């Protein structure tokens, strides 16, 4: 059975840019929650809020702890409201938890200025019951440790760290190796082994005390005591050296990370350049739309006159209609008159050409007289100029200005949106400029020099450590000899303690062997599972499998069995994700994954494959992404039916962001 950790809801108050109280619901197991947000809007802060809720840690760039004072919302602080709070609702091992954690100014502090002016508070409610301090500590320890959290909550920076480790396993960080073993459950055996080792020392002391009671063994006991002293000193030295080494290795890692980021300044510059271009396009478009509005405004005054014009148009239609009827009448008469006159002149019908009788000739004469009379009685023909003006007015008033109002409003709306976009882009550009300025060259020089000094110190410490380990080994050998002699000639009491020592050593051997076997087995499992995930994620059909080494480093193996020596950044990214997925699968805790900007350096093919595999990487997945990393429509299409919740981080100001839920057809 594995423990299952399911996150339900997060509520944050004044945490970073998230002013006042805001909430976010996680997707149910098997589904994915996506949070969209542009850079510097608060995605990493959201990841930190989840991390802080569980572990009480806020990690900044270069894995440095962030300041509590700086984490509180600035706008709220300006209004006299200091500190922040997170509340996380989750299920673990069949119980429901509400975990409240926050920082507030100490009672005596009115205007906090640094971290020491704050106090932290933690409350846990399990199944409706508030836990006491000890229960609280135990519950938190069981849910997640800082070491294992790195496999549940991670950002691109941490993913990159894995990639470096996987590329160069010799430099695999001690912390990460230990964290991998912790998540896999190795510490239960290594812990028991270490305690048995300590128990051996206790029993040796018992033997020494018993040996000192007899003159036969007193001399040996004295030599044994001296060895104990040497061993204690060597142990202490080794512990000290290892602690210093660990600190220096962490410092070295942090310096390397810092240098990497300094190298990334060109990326920031390129981001700023494209931002400038984008702003220019926006401004050009803005001018064009403003011109369109000016043109529409030129005729807008007609809107006021439109009812009157409509009335006039009606009159014009009537007048021009009468005139047209008259014209037709005149034309008809003209034609008829012509034909009658032609008939009289030729004495035949103009249509059938038969000869006209006298009576027919008389009818024609009377008809001609009637038409000529009618033409004299009708209204005089309108002036041709007047008619032209009538037609022109009718055409000019045919376009209704009121029908153009919706276009005008849409244009005004567009312009408003574009002005906001320009303002946001300008602010983003200012942020980028600040960031670029902060990464100056003198910083790089100083960091390189610091790194060189640190590497030298590590070298010296490693030599000292080796020396102490050698001394310890020699002393252990000497103690073994003394122990054997004492066993042969010692008193019954010494013999009894010697039996205890033998039992303890036998147990130690058992656990030692078990640790080796467990590690081997776990490595096999991790290799198998990581390979399965890797083959689903990679777009390269010739890759055969992944191969794990002693330090959990992974290499890509071609189908023909050869190790791939050079890997692309995308491939390394995929390998790191595969390791994380495999560790998740083999962990004693089945937990959620929260990934911040994980697709930044991947092509669309890899991104698509990862998106499709997300629901299988962990039981519960939360993605924090920016727009150019993954488009929302694409995410919905790729994860059809598998999206639980979607949110957008919307900017209100540089110090205030809002978490907005997005509507979706298949959302929970």
């Amino acid at each position, binding site marked *: *059975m*594995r*423990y299952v950790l399911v996150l339900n809801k997060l509520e944050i108050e004044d945490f970073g840019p998230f002013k006042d109280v805001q909430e976010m619901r996680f997707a149910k197991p098997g589904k994915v929650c996506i949070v969209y947000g542009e850079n510097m809007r608060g995605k990493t802060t959201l990841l930190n809020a989840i991390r802080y809720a569980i572990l009480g840690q806020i990690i900044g760039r270069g894995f440095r702890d962030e300041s509590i004072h700086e984490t509180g919302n600035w706008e709220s602080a300006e209004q006299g409201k200091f500190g922040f709070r997170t509340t996380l609702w989750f299920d673990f091992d069949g119980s429901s938890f509400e975990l409240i954690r926050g920082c507030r100014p100490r009672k005596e502090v009115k205007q906090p200025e640094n971290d020491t002016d704050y106090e932290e508070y933690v409350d846990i409610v399990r199944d409706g019951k508030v836990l006491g301090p000890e229960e609280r500590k135990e519950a938190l*320890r*069981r849910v997640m440790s800082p070491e294992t959290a790195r496999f549940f909550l991670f950002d691109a920076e941490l993913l990159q760290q894995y990639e470096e480790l996987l590329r160069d396993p010799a430099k695999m960080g001690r912390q990460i190796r230990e964290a991998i073993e912790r998540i896999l*459950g190795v510490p*239960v*055996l290594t*812990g*028991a082994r270490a*305690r*048995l080792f*300590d*128990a051996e020392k*206790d*029993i040796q002391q018992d033997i020494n005390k018993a040996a000192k009671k007899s003159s036969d063994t007193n001399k040996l006991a004295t030599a044994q005591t001296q060895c104990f002293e040497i061993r204690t000193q060597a142990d202490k030295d080794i512990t000290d050296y290892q602690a210093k080494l660990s600190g220096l290795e962490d410092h070295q890692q942090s310096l390397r990370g810092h240098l990497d980021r300094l190298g990334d300044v060109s990326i920031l510059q390129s981001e700023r350049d494209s931002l400038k271009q984008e702003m220019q396009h926006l401004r050009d478009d803005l001018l064009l739309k403003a011109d369109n509005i000016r043109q529409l405004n030129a005729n807008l005054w007609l809107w006021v006159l439109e009812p009157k014009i409509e009335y006039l148009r009606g009159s014009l239609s009537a007048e021009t209609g009468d005139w047209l009827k008259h014209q037709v009448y005149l034309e008809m008469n003209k034609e008829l008159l012509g034909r009658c006159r032609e008939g009289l002149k030729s004495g035949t019908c103009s249509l059938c050409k038969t000869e006209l009788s006298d009576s027919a000739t008389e009818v024609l004469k009377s008809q001609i007289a009637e038409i000529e009379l009618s033409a004299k009685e009708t209204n005089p023909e309108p002036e041709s100029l007047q008619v032209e003006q009538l037609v022109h007015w009718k055409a000019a008033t045919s376009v209704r200005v009121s029908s153009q109002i919706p276009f005008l409003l849409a244009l005004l709306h567009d312009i408003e949106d574009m002005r906001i976009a320009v303002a946001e882009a300008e602010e983003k550009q200012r942020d980028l400029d600040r960031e670029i300025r902060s990464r100056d060259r003198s910083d790089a020089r100083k960091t390189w020099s610091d790194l060189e000094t640190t590497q030298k110190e590590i070298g010296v410490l490693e030599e000292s450590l080796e020396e102490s380990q050698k001394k310890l080994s020699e002393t252990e050998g000497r103690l073994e000899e003394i122990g054997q002699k004492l066993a042969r000639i010692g008193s019954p009491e010494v013999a*009894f303690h010697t*039996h*205890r020592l*033998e*039992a*303890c050593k*036998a*147990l130690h*051997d*058992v*656990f030692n*062997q*078990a640790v080796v*076997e*467990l590690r081997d*087995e776990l490595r096999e499992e991790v290799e198998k599972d990581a390979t399965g995930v890797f083959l689903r994620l990679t777009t390269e059909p010739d890759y055969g499998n992944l191969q794990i080494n002693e330090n959990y480093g992974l290499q890509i193996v071609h189908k023909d069995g050869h190790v791939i020596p050079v890997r692309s950044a995308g491939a390394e990214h995929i390998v790191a994700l595969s390791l994380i997925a495999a560790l998740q699968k083999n962990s*004693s805790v089945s937990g959620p994954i929260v990934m911040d900007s994980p697709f930044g350096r991947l092509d669309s093919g890899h991104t698509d494959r990862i998106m499709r595999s997300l629901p299988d990487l962990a039981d519960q997945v939360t993605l924090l992404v920016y727009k150019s990393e993954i488009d929302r429509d694409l995410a919905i299409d790729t994860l059809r039916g598998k999206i639980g919740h979607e949110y957008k981080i919307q900017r209100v100001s540089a110090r205030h962001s809002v978490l907005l839920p997005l509507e979706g057809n298949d959302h929970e």
Partner: protein
Amino acid sequence: MNSQESFEKILARVRGTLHPDVPQDLVREILRIQIDIPDNDSEARRQLLVAIDKFVKDKGALRAGTE
């Protein structure tokens, strides 16, 4: 790993490497101490020594009984 299942899984693994002189019950007890008391070193070590002493005494009594 804290669950009974995980415990048994580890025990099965340790059992596979058992020393002929180390009984399963003793291994089980050492594991229980490690799992139940992960953070209190002195108490864990005290309990561990009690378990070993009991094993040695029982073994001695058994040996005396068979002799």
